[in-house]
């Protein structure tokens, strides 16, 4: 006899449909053979810059560190032709320092991880209090983690109720729901968890791959599974959900491959920073370096680009 937890898994998988691991890997391998040149490359690189959530999530973060991150976010390379990044992403205690550095009237949004990031292993009231405090300090966006323990135990209703509670606590702030894909392990689980989250999200709230704190983060494979879930949900309900792969995207080449996946899976309406983001930090300087290369025809040494954060 199947246990109640197995039943609930089967019911959800039946409802959202299975994912074939080999098939997904084959699909995304095709993105890596696309050859993006000249104007298309420059457009892709600049768009990628505008999608970066410039991130520092270290125990040793200081107000000074966050301030320099904000300066980098506002002016990635001192070139007016290059857009600002989408947001800075910091711990809740750093939100007020980020707000001070960026000011009120700024194109760069402030995202804060909350809900006992990265494990989420705190009582719900503590997590909600953390969300509210971050929003009160000036966060425009909240990156929450789902309750993976509850998901793996089949307590889907609990997972979803908690997401809904966090959404309420966000108020007007955009919510990003981190599935932490490496802890869900299978593509079937990633697809199922995407649906659990999307069903209680508002238009242009995000689902996000990972915290960047585990061994495996964003890959083209799990990005594809989530993009397809977003597509199916949108065509079914009309609610557009946004997507944020995070962690492990360090090179401009990778970022372009992720954008090709967006172009070919969700289309033009997702090729902007309202609907797609990169959670990254070292990626930004590689994007800038490639933009310079496209413009000047030559690579510049890495030390010509100001460091913003340690790798994420």
């Amino acid at each position, binding site marked *: 006899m199947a246990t109640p937890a197995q039943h609930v898994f089967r019911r959800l998988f039946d409802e959202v449909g299975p994912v074939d691991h080999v098939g997904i890997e084959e699909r995304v391998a095709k993105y890596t053979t*696309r050859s993006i040149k000249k104007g298309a*490359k420059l457009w892709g690189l600049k768009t990628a810059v505008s999608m970066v959530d410039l991130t520092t999530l270290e125990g040793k973060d200081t107000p000074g560190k966050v301030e320099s991150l904000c300066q980098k976010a506002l002016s990635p390379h001192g070139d007016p032709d290059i857009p600002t990044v989408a947001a800075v992403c910091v711990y809740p205690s750093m939100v007020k320092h980020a707000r001070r550095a960026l000011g009120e009237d700024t194109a760069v949004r402030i995202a804060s991880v909350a809900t006992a990031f990265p494990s989420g292993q705190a009582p719900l009231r503590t997590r909600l209090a953390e969300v509210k405090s971050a929003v009160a300090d000036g966060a425009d966006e909240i990156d929450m983690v789902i309750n993976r323990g509850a998901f793996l135990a089949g307590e889907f209703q609990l997972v979803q109720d908690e997401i809904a509670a966090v959404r309420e606590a966000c108020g007007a702030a955009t919510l990003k729901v981190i599935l932490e894909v490496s802890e869900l392990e299978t593509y079937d689980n990633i697809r199922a968890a995407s649906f659990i989250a999307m069903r209680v999200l508002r238009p242009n709230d995000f689902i996000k791959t990972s915290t960047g704190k585990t061994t495996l983060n964003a890959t083209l494979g799990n990005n594809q599974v989530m993009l397809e879930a977003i597509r199916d949900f949108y065509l079914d309900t009309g609610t557009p959900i946004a997507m944020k792969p995070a962690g492990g995207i360090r090179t401009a080449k990778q970022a372009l491959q992720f954008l090709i996946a967006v172009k070919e899976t969700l*289309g033009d309406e997702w090729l902007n920073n309202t609907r797609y983001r990169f959670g990254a930090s070292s990626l930004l300087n590689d994007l800038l370096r490639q933009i310079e290369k496209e413009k000047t025809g030559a690579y510049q040494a890495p030390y010509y680009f100001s460091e913003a954060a340690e790798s994420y």
Partner: protein
Amino acid sequence: MPTLTEKKRPTSRSAGRPAPELIFGDLWEFDPAPETADPKLKPRYDLFIGGKFVAPVSGKYFDSINPANETKLAEIAQANAADVDAAYQAAKKAYDTVWGKMPGRERAKYIFRIARLLQDRAREFAVAETMDGGKAIKESRDFDVPMAAAHFFYHAGWADKLDYVAPGRRVAPLGVVGQVIPWNFPLLMLAWKLAPALAMGNTIVIKPAETTSITALKLAEIFQDAGLPAGVVNIVTGFGDTGAAVMDHPIAAKVAFTGSTEVGKIIMRSLAGTDKKMTMELGGKAANIVFDDAPIDQAVEGIVNGIFFNQGHVCCAGSRLLVQETVAAEVLAKLKNRVKVLRIGDPLDKNTDIGAINSKEQLGTIERLVATGVKEGATMFQPACKLPSKGYYFRPTIFSGVSMSHRIAREEIFGPVLSVLTFRTVDEAVEKANNTAYGLSAGVWTDKGSRILKMSTELKAGVVWANTYNKFDPASPFGGYKESGFGREGGRQGLLDYCKLV
């Protein structure tokens, strides 16, 4: 608050607003990304007989056209019966004096050398293949050329182990074999045919298709570089009459043909009453069967790969999609969205997914059959992509509402045209899949392992792919049932078709 089972539906749709759609527009257009390697083409290619390039007896040449832009690539020698006879004499001499007597381990060295030289010049061959045949460079680069090399490597490995190919028996080569190959995979078919024959110790007279002779003659340059003894492989180019001369020549101990069922039947008729061995790899009208528990997105990917790979010029193409009624609408909707992002155009562009149709004649055949489909009442879908102004191109085409009696469900179109049919039960799927004169391949998409096993025993097809499509390996035998031919290519079974048991 919405629950897990109650899907959140915004009021906008119930208020009669149009259903949400995805926009695959031109926000991010890709710049051209042409492959620039030099194909090193010669202006004129002669026949390859007795290890040398020789002019045809008739002195006649014909033009090889690049189907992507209708320009002339090179002149190809037109062989007549006298040239074919010279080729057979050279092959016989090579068999009697050198190749037939050579130990397998020595033959292996030549075959390995051919494989390595082909790998060394892979990029050059890929570009030549694309210019000559119209297939997308990503396919010739990532599939045709590496797979051709893989066939030589695999069979080189067999050459010194032939004592183990038929347990308890000894094997001996047949002698001289005649081979005729089609234009859809010019280099790869050449490798499929040559490698097992060479490994077994046969010598060969082979005729490539008239529209795609160039890579065969470039491979002849590699035979020279590899020091392959003169006459072991002879290449005669030309039209149908040249092919008939190759098939009918009295020296041929065996003939192997890949091509249309129509021509295959003519060859079989002409060889009736002779003692020639034969293998035929002919047409197909494969069923790609999608059950309602299949991973739909990956099935859609497999459907696209099954029918649009190489512009649908594939004998095992999944040209009939059988989809279970309960998921038919979903599969079709997803398929259309997928086809909208396929890139059709210059085959040399690295981003091109669907290249040029091989020839004007083939384009005409496709257009005729598609017109029949429309006339017979099937619903046609084509994406609104731009096609180049010159060259032979055809949009990927999906016909829905097709029934078993439609011509587009019965005849091999050999182009990027998919016919979608539905079924309700497993038995109905099997019956419809088998209701064809062909039996080359089939695909099954389901999450249920037991169903895969059941289908693979009941489908009358030489290859059954499960949750994938168009997967090939030199070690895996390939061949058909019914009018798709007989004999196998690849693996141990393929080798057995090039030897006699002694």
